[in-house]
């Protein structure tokens, strides 16, 4: 398997008014093509910072970050990002929000009708063909997040980066979107890195769970391989002893070894 995303000795320091803040140290991570990685840890542990390094929104102070064998310098369309708060542009329809991304990535090579077809396909993939002419404020939170995912996927990224994509949704919508995400990822064979603070979500979706220690100077504490067979079904897993064993491992890490004093 090809090493797709590779982080070597990443260190991140922020200079703040109170001096230098050491956010991340010694991050070493390599991700194969087609793998689903989740980053989990207590808030403030730098999970989002780590994701932003891969996205290119944040520069590492030291170390190298590679994607598909090339050094990451700034954001690029080969790394699609799904933001926590969807970040759709409110003055564009769902269609236009996705079209903006499609046009940027494929506009130089393909004609208008092909670009429109790609946009329609992306909306169909997340089941929102009926909402294409609606604006973000006219649809529900779950639908917005699906448009955000469609926008990222429409760019045919090499890596899909998701920063707590379902964090702001209610439990039922979240479960529904997790199921849809599993189907989409299985169909597109995407490589995914997802930040989450939901243990069940991490175990259900990932191939590997990256558990992070508490900040400051957070690093990777342990990487747990989730060897549950795919496709996974949340109802069947509810009675699966191995699922519970994996879940306990994560909980143990978070609440015993990295317990935070109540903030």
């Amino acid at each position: 398997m090809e090493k797709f995303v590779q982080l070597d000795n990443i260190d991140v320091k922020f200079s703040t008014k109170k001096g230098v803040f050491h956010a991340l140290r010694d991050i070493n991570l390599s991700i194969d093509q087609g793998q689903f990685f989740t980053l989990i840890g207590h808030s403030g542990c730098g999970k989002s910072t780590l994701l932003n390094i891969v996205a290119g929104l944040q520069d590492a102070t030291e170390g190298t970050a590679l994607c598909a064998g090339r050094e990451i310098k700034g954001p690029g369309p080969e790394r699609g990002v799904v933001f926590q708060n969807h970040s759709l542009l409110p003055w564009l329809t769902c269609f236009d929000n996705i079209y903006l991304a499609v046009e940027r990535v494929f506009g130089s090579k393909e004609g208008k009708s092909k670009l429109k077809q790609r946009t329609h396909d992306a909306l169909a993939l997340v089941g929102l063909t009926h909402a294409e002419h609606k604006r973000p404020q006219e649809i529900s939170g779950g639908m917005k997040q699906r448009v955000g995912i469609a926008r990222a996927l429409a760019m045919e990224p090499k890596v899909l980066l998701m920063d707590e994509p379902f964090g702001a949704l209610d439990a039922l919508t979240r479960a529904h979107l997790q199921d849809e995400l599993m189907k989409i990822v299985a169909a597109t064979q995407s490589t995914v890195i997802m930040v989450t603070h939901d243990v069940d979500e991490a175990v259900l979706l990932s191939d590997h769970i990256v558990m992070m220690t508490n900040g400051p100077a957070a690093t990777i504490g342990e990487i747990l391989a989730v060897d549950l067979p795919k496709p996974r079904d949340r109802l069947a897993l509810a009675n699966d002893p191995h699922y519970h064993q994996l879940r306990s491992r994560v909980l143990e890490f978070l609440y015993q070894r990295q317990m935070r004093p109540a903030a």
Partner: protein
Amino acid sequence: MSAVYGTLQHTPDAEDATTASAVTEPATTTPPVAAKPAFNAKDKLGALMRWLIPPILGLALFIGVWALIAQETANLPGPYATWQSAVELFAHPFYNNGPNDQGIGWNILYSLYRVGIGFGLAALVGIPLGFMIGRFKFLSDMTGPIISLLRPVSPLAWLPIGLLVFKQAEPASIYVIFISSIWPMIINTAVGVRQIPQDYLNVARVLNLSEWKVFTRILFPAVLPHVLTGIRLSIGIAWLVIVAAEMLTGGVGIGFWVWDEWNNLNVAHIIIAIFVVGIVGLLLEQMLVFIAKRFTYE
């Protein structure tokens, strides 16, 4: 959503039923069917009344107080005398008896023309300047003290400088409009640019959009509501200022007309002018509110 859809679908059906049944058996079905629209019409009438009565009452009260004061004050025409004078005045709004005696229509148009030029120039300069000040902190820090210093200056304080520089009344009054209406546009645009959520800019970075696309698809639409607020405030100021400026500079214009009628001791015309200035200002404001509504996305 579904409820709305339901009603939308239901209404034509009900109407069809009405006409169909009215044709086949009018005697039996007409009364209950007719009752419902009648009730709706009554309801609508009630809503219209609730909407109309308070402002009408307010206006009536205002006119009453005015009539009372006019009765007690010598030389102040009451509502009826003013109305008669207005009917006479607006019978020939566009007569022209030389530069110092022209119809009220010409006076309004000249004032609007000055406001248009002065305000238009202010928008042309102020909005792009606001964009730059909002985008570049250095520029913001550079212009900050000057803007803070000049913004509170009373508009008419600029007039002598304008007269001195331009040597003529016309460009001087346009310049006063320009300088007093530019600030809200600069400040609101700059604030709008600064308040663009980082999320949108992150989208631009992740999608790697070109500068032109960033401007047309993200910066401009995000800032537009702020720009329109600035324009609205500015046009209000411009219209306030023109009346005062024209009183001092003379020429054809609603402000000078007021001053001229004061010299003629035609108080009814002054009162008419006050209404005209108010109504034109209201229309300008409403026009911009209408435009602003079309461009807001929230």
